[in-house]
């Protein structure tokens, strides 16, 4: 039972996948533009990421190595550089978007421009990491993150036509705007299957000192944690479909349309709930991304790392996230449009999916690392499917980016 409390790792991971700035904006866009038609994309993303997260947790619990460690060790430095560089760039772009997201939430709350908030937000993220422990961050973010359940309550209170909601779980082509529909679908899938999520989860499992006795817990956490994110994501989509579409808003081209989405249900409280959800989800994702940037570099080069160590014990790791956060505040401070940064980072993520997933085919079947706990045929079939899906996402992202948006 005590082990199940570690579900917080699953919840933090899934907040990064489904509720951060990009995913929330895309889910709302999907509902406003295409009613319930794109629910299947969130559901499919949830299943795929649950599989990958379970595997990376199992990998870490059995081998005490993270996915990034193993990519370098198993495939050598030259191959490692490719996913390394791609993930580094994507993480950085996403972190810029998240810092923008927190700053925007503060702008909505206080009326002070988000450009002013960029630096204090960066400082807050940094202090939490510099002084905090992994358990503190993990438990704090997952507790506060429960506020996003307000979307689930709202979705129920709006009494959507459940039969149509259920039909949304089956992929169908829309009668209009095919390019945009595919663009949103690709963004949803790319954001939820993003490599930094399962890389972070495997590092978290090592931080939490999981061993083979956690394999069942890991399976539950992967399933329940990712379902939490997927459920809130679908609820946000349904809410947008019920609120925006009837009011003629079909385009979420700016975050300014977002804070009012719950007003029809909760009145002024709706505004407070959405703004807090946005701020907290983006804060959680910022912490996760900054840590992952440090983990990736430290693990790739074999340095000491660990959020529970004092920074002097792992200066390479600590200074990597410090530097990343400092630079990632710049777009916000310089006044870049948060929605554009978010959309750019989301499509970059979709490009990086195959690079992150292909190594699973080898790592999850390597007896040196996972011994008897290697993938069965279901696991391997799932990885093959996700690799294929990843290639489709990467191939169609660029043309869709040009025509769809």
């Amino acid at each position, binding site marked *: 039972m005590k082990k199940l409390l570690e579900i917080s790792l699953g919840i933090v991971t899934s907040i990064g996948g489904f509720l951060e700035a990009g995913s929330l904006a895309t889910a709302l866009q999907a509902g406003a533009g295409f009613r319930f038609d794109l629910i299947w994309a969130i559901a499919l993303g949830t299943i795929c990421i649950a599989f990958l997260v379970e595997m990376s947790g199992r990998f870490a619990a059995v081998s005490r190595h993270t996915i990034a460690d193993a990519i370098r060790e198993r495939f050598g430095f030259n191959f490692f550089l490719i996913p390394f560089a791609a993930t580094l760039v994507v993480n950085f772009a996403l972190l810029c978007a998240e810092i923008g997201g927190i700053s925007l939430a503060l702008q909505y709350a206080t009326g002070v421009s988000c450009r002013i908030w960029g630096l204090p937000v960066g400082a807050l993220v940094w202090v939490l990491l510099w002084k905090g422990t992994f358990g503190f961050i993990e438990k704090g973010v997952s507790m506060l993150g429960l506020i996003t359940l307000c979307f689930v309550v709202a979705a129920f209170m709006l009494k959507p036509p459940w039969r149509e909601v259920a039909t949304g779980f089956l992929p169908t082509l829309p009668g209009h705007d095919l390019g945009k529909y595919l663009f949103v679908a690709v963004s949803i899938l790319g954001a939820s299957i993003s490599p930094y999520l399962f890389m972070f989860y495997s590092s978290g499992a090592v931080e939490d000192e999981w061993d083979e006795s956690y394999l069942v817990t890991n399976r539950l956490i992967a399933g329940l944690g990712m379902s939490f994110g997927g459920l809130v994501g679908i609820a946000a989509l349904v809410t947008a479909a019920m609120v925006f579409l009837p009011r003629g808003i079909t385009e979420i081209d700016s975050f300014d349309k977002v804070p009012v989405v719950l007003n029809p249900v909760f009145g002024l409280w709706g505004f407070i709930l959405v703004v807090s959800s946005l701020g907290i989800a983006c804060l959680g994702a910022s912490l996760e991304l900054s840590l992952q940037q440090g983990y990736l570099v430290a693990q790739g080069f074999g340095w000491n790392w660990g959020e529970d160590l004092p920074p002097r014990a792992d*200066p390479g790791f600590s200074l990597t996230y410090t530097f990343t956060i400092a630079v990632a505040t710049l777009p916000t401070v310089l006044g870049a449009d948060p929605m554009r940064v978010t959309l750019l980072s989301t499509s970059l993520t979709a490009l990086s999916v195959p690079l992150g997933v292909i190594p699973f085919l080898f790592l999850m079947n390597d007896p040196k690392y996972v011994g008897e706990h290697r993938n069965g045929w279901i696991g391997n079939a799932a990885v093959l499917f996700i690799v294929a899906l990843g290639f489709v996402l990467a191939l169609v992202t660029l043309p869709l980016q040009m025509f769809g948006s």
Partner: protein
Amino acid sequence: MDLVRDILDKQLLDQNGVKMGKIDGLLLVVEAGRQPHVTHIQLGAVVLARRLGSLCGRIVEEIAARFGGEERRHPIMIPWSKIADIGVDIELAIDSRKSPLSDVANWLNRKITARFGG
């Protein structure tokens, strides 16, 4: 044992379990009348850069020599005999605090980490 599969790029740990980097390169000595044998493991950005190509290697050597002194042109070498155990990780019978490997970490700590109270 397969050197590339089992040794190269593996995690190095010192005698206290402190991570010391990954094995970036291996030094093989070929002598007439003897089997080629590994004498040292190599660490450092210079070796990694050489693995990407000779031009890349020369560029990183120049940068390292300019900022760290002429001796940084060469990778850090650890004699093969210091290896205590070979598993998924490679354990060494040395104390990383007394090795030149800690120089950079110590420098970072003095210059930056300590100033922020880390």
